[in-house]
């Protein structure tokens, strides 16, 4: 039987809790909790306190999950909470579900779409949006619905274009609601 505490490679078949800080890292390339919290704060202005009660786990290459319950570490189960962030790549990518679940806390890199833009985004279409003056990279796309802005998902902004990265299975043809 292998001892999990001495296993220093990333096991893609199980969930391992993220180390607290980079100094606590035992598995090469694994993001730490502090880096994850810093990333959300820097990229989207979401305060680390929003995630205080949650734990973060890695399974597979760089896929980070967010969880709000009790679990053993490491854990050999099918899923633990929800997918949250893709790490182990140059530009970390939030999941669309993380954007819809936590995006209402975001204060920066949020792009508010008009009704027609929102429909095109939900359908998975890329669209020209040269008027955006913020950062390039991953943005949280929102639209106005029932008295407030609500996040739709994650878009990738490059060269005056907003690419919808809504997963194929979640795309929808929706009416333009003026």
């Amino acid at each position, binding site marked *: 039987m292998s001892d999990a505490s001495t296993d220093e490679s990333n096991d893609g078949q199980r969930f391992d809790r993220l180390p607290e800080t980079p100094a606590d890292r035992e598995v090469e390339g694994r993001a730490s909790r502090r880096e994850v919290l810093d990333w959300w704060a820097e990229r989207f202005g979401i305060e680390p306190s929003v995630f205080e009660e*949650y734990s973060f786990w890695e399974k597979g290459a760089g896929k980070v999950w967010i969880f*709000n319950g009790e679990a053993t570490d490491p854990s050999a189960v099918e899923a633990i909470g929800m997918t949250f962030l893709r790490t182990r790549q140059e530009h970390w990518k939030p999941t669309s579900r993380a954007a819809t679940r936590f995006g209402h806390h975001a204060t920066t890199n949020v792009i508010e779409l008009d009704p027609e833009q929102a429909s095109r985004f939900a359908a998975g279409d890329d669209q020209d949006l040269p008027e955006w003056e913020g950062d390039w990279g991953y943005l949280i796309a929102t639209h106005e*619905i*029932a008295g407030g802005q609500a996040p739709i998902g994650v878009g990738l902004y490059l060269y005056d274009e907003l690419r919808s990265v809504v997963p194929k299975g979640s795309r*929808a043809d929706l009416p333009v609601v003026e």
Partner: protein
Amino acid sequence: MNPLARYEPLVDDAAAFRAACDRPLPSVVRVNELAASPGRVREAFAEEGVAYEAVDWHDGLFRLPDGNPGGNWPYVHGWTHGQEEVSVLPGLALDPQPGERVWDACAAPGSKTTQIADAMGDEGTVVANDNNLGRLSALRHNAERLGITNAIVTNQDARNFSMKPLAFDEFDRALVDAPCSCEGTCRKNPDVVDQWTLDHVHAVAGIQKGILARAVQATRPGGTVVYSTCTFAPEENEAVLDHVLAAEDCEVVAFDLPLDTVPGVTEWDGETYDESVTRAHRVYPHHNDTGGFFCAKLRVGGEAGETAADGEEVSA
């Protein structure tokens, strides 16, 4: 033979029962209150021109007479989930609380798991198990779409469920929404009536007994286990309760449901069952214009101790 005929002696108005079973059911959605209030969903439906009707016994359910429950903005935002009306009953009977440890033994595709997580305010732990890996991917998809962060998903045979992957030894509550003959869903899926066989009833009843017994064993003394099916067959309902009452330390308890139901039956096909099974609820299609359903609530025997919710600190 149409299996619905065998249940005519159990119902008050056989003609109304059969007529209701032949009518299709409307699409219904449940509001995911982790993401939006019923009021905000109503407002969004109105803005978008989606026709909806309230369900008088539950604020968070809407009938969509034009169908297509997934083709609107509230669905895309994870504010709603398509779920038949009677399917919310076991979650109401279970009454899970924030911070608790809850087991959904036969969880896929996740309607009840996500309803449980919603009732828990996404706090505590809901362990969503199913033996079918393919159906678990549907559960995963639904849980993510609705933004559930307190679920652990496992792929085990519930009859021999091992607590080993978990951080605790027992649950506060467990739901056994058992695989069954499903004639109660005939208004949605008429094929179930053609596929029905008595052999299957007897085979699945054995599985149901095994799962319910394991749920009682895995739940703390004083904890709650809810047993539900969408079949009218007493072999899969009262007979399963009767078996587990004799084999495990538990009792059937009385509880209320917010629609018209009739008590469980104590006699069927030459068998008699423990009197306490009358505390279970039978839901017939012609009484509330819904699908058919069966729901029982059990209390696990022994002295009630601290629960996860009101006792020790829950470590994240």
